[in-house]
């Protein structure tokens, strides 16, 4: 696994050193997503903006419930409606406005241009269909190839995601595969149509630690081999360093900080990000990432604000150790504090 990683690093450098290759592939702007009715609802996503460049891996980090999954589902056009309402904002992909595409047009984007894998590998595969069929069907739907051709390519994909005995696996059913294997199958399926963007919504959260590391290795490996952009969603800032180029931190439906990974680690601006960084488990601790987040947040008293209430000021203010009067009254917007490093916080201005 060492070799392709090196190749990957080299590739990224080439891309980074050649600015003409950098183009924005996906641009999300001012996205508001509600659940409920127009009168009574929760605001799950509140004014979220970000972009993903070609070949880049962007991580979205935040506690569970902060709106990461909803954000990624909206890119796929998979927000269940009702009760979901996309109230405002735009999602631009390759010159297309995804929020206003016709159903049939959007279907051609899903799984083809933008693919997604989910947090729950145990339940994300259909229990009564073979692995082979579930891997082939996206290619048959989008690439207009025969079942036989699709099967041949599916076997190639199983090899790509390092599943031993791919021919045998094709005939098997999901319950015959371990969680890690199933997530590999999901990844292989998602990559089968060579999407421009792969959205990975907490792909390792449901897996045990050693398998998590293997899946991360695999994703890094794939990054190196294909130049797919990745939107990597996680609640664990510790994982981010291993895979992402850039990070976006979310809190209670809002984005609060965005920077290159090394910059964010060395120079966090938002007090919430500071808290998250403190929560990264060290190797000598037997704490799962989620527990340690909770531990660290204990040092930040207060609770996540109810999303039923309209929040006037900064949503983190009630538990922020630095909060002043202004924080409870005026909402801070995302501003560039250091070049390439944006945060939604009043503190740098004091």
């Amino acid at each position, binding site marked *: 696994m060492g070799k392709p990683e090196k190749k990957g690093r080299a590739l990224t450098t080439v891309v980074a050193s050649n600015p003409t290759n950098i183009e924005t592939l996906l641009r999300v702007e001012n996205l508001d997503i509600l659940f409920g009715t127009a009168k009574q609802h929760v605001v799950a996503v509140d004014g979220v903006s970000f972009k993903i460049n070609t070949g880049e891996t962007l991580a979205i980090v935040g506690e569970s419930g902060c709106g990461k999954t909803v954000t990624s589902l909206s890119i*796929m056009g*998979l927000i269940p409606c009702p009760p979901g309402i996309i109230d405002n904002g735009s999602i631009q992909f390759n010159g297309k406005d995804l929020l206003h595409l016709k159903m049939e047009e959007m*279907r*051609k*984007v*899903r*799984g*083809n241009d933008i*693919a*997604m894998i*989910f947090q*729950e590998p145990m*339940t*994300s*595969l*259909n*229990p*009564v*269909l073979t692995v082979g069929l579930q891997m082939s*069907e*996206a290619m048959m*739907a*989008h690439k207009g190839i025969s079942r036989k051709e699709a099967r041949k390519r599916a076997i190639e994909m199983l090899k790509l995601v390092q599943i031993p005995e791919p021919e045998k696996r094709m005939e098997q*059913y999901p*319950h*015959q595969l371990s969680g890690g294997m199933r997530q590999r199958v*999901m990844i292989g*399926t998602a990559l089968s149509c060579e999407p421009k963007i792969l959205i990975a919504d907490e792909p390792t959260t449901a897996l045990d630690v050693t398998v998590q590391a293997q899946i991360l290795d695999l994703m890094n490996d794939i990054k190196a081999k294909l130049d797919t952009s990745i939107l990597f969603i996680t609640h664990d800032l510790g994982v981010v360093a291993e895979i992402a180029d850039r990070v976006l931190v979310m809190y209670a439906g809002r984005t609060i900080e965005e920077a290159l990974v090394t910059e964010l680690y060395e120079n966090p601006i938002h007090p919430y990000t500071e808290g998250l960084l403190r929560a990264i488990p060290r190797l000598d601790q037997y704490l799962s990432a989620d527990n340690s987040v909770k531990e660290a947040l204990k040092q930040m008293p207060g609770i996540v604000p109810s999303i039923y209430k309209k929040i006037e000021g900064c949503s983190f203010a009630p538990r922020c150790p630095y909060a002043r009067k202004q924080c409870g009254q005026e909402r801070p917007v995302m501003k560039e504090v250091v070049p390439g490093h944006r945060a939604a916080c009043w503190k740098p201005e004091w």
Partner: protein
Amino acid sequence: MLTYFIRRVFTAILTLIIAAFAVSMLIYLVPGDPVDAMMGDSSSFVSPERVEEIRSQLGLDKPVYLQFPFFMANVLRGDMGRTIFGNEPVLPLLLSKLPNTLILAFAGLAVAILIGVPLGYIAAYQKGKFLDSILMLGATLGISMPVFWLGLMLLVLFSMMLGIFPVAGSGFGSLVLPAFTSGVIAAATIARMARSTMVEILQEDYIRSARAKGLSERIVLMRHAVKPSLVGVVGMIAHMFTWMLGGQIIIENVFAWDGLGQLAVSALLNREYNLIQGYILIYSTMVVTISVVLDLIYAGLDPRIRYE
């Protein structure tokens, strides 16, 4: 899988033997002397020789512990005794009514499947919308509607007033109304079951995965949703089928359909113990057979069962 199937057939046979034992002991539930009870008011007209003949036919002249072996040996020879009145052999009599019951059950089942399954699925897909409410209201009506009332209404409307179908008989024309009556009632139950199964499946993660692949809605539904729903739906269909096979006493009565149900009722009224025993045995055999076949179907539908 094969050993599982063999084990399944073995338990099925065991079940039948237990059922046969229970049936053979049925006669001891009759208070007083069974033969006297069977004769009822007419006992004074029957010669003592005839009474003795019936006693030995029922094995009552043998000790209790020989009762069941005697009964079982006869059954295995295809001899389920004779009726008391008419002295007819029981098994051929039951078998002569069986085809009619089977025809009505299969026809009713076809109606139930064709109506119940699609409507249940459609309601699930339209969950919470107007069509769903209408369909489920219809299903609730279907479940709570008395069988005889529906049967009579159909009979009055289509046979007596419109004259489309004959009032009684056993041809195809006279099959339509009874099959429709039992089919509609079973369809209501099947539709509710199909709906709740499908509602649950449509919320599954794997349906979201299928949509995320950009599959057409037709493939998402037909391949990813319908197939996993079949285990539950087929189970309910089989349940309805066993209900129909019992002979649908009320429907057979309303439409003068000459099946097992009517025979069973008259056997009960006339205290024809041999006939009742035979009926229970035949019905048990059908039920047990269906459950074995059903297990095979389950294994075909769900790989988790197949590869256990």
